[in-house]
């Protein structure tokens, strides 16, 4: 059976946004990233370390998108990328990578989660764990876009 390594992350985004935030997001066509710059103003990134699958996953949001999501999730408004908003982005990436982990576990693939890290600033640089290709997956809630970046390394010499 061929394993789809991207779909568990997509499913986890849909599930996290639906259950935790209460919004329905749609997904656009994935593309390969050409550089290390993000499309958003705030990014949460988290590492995965396993015998078979390793890498990192990031969620990056334009400021307007994340402020809208914050309001929806917490029930209070925020007008800047405050420490609370940064914390929420870290927790969202945590829930997505953890959700995917649960799905991978059912396929016999396991990894450890790192503590999420959050970076802010317009068009900032995000360093993934490996110099592997980065797949960017655009999502949207109403007029609020955000992007997931996935960089995975399969360690084929190890048994999954």
């Amino acid at each position, binding site marked *: 059976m061929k394993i789809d390594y991207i779909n568990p992350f997509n499913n986890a985004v849909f599930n996290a946004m639906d259950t*935790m935030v209460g919004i329905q997001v749609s997904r656009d066509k994935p593309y390969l990233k050409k550089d290390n710059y993000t499309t958003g103003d705030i990014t949460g990134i988290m590492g995965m370390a396993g015998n078979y699958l390793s890498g990192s996953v990031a969620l990056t949001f334009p400021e307007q998108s994340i402020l809208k999501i914050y309001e929806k999730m917490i029930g209070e408004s925020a007008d800047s990328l405050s420490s609370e908003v940064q914390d929420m982005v870290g*927790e969202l990436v945590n829930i997505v990578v953890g*959700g995917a*982990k649960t799905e991978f576990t059912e396929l016999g693939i*396991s990894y450890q*989660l790192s*503590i999420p890290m959050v970076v802010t600033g317009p068009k900032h640089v995000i360093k993934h764990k490996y110099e592997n290709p980065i797949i960017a997956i655009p999502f949207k809630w109403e007029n609020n876009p955000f992007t997931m970046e996935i960089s995975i390394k399969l360690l084929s010499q190890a048994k999954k």
Partner: protein
Amino acid sequence: MKVLVVDDSVTMRRIIINSLKSSGYDDLVEAGDGIEALANMEGVELVLTDWNMPNMDGLTFVKELKQSDVYKDIPIIMITTEGGKGEVIEALKQGVNNYIVKPFDKDTLLDKVKKTISG
């Protein structure tokens, strides 16, 4: 009833605390990791704890509680992104009474809290 909410994410603590408050729980304390949690155990009757946290993770915190004569019988709910069967079994083995996988909705949270405190 005094409830301790432990999570390294302020957002997650806020969501959990708001849900509990809306359901009438008003004696709520919070902590950002296991060490802070251990220092705030006095009078606590229910613990809700995350697993992945810096300094001291949730599973280590649970083990500490279970080794304490004073705190070993306090019910514990683990709320975590770790949803694998192995993790759930490990947590239950260490004495966690109930388990909630993130993402969760408010009804699930309140339902598990109710079930846990009613035995």
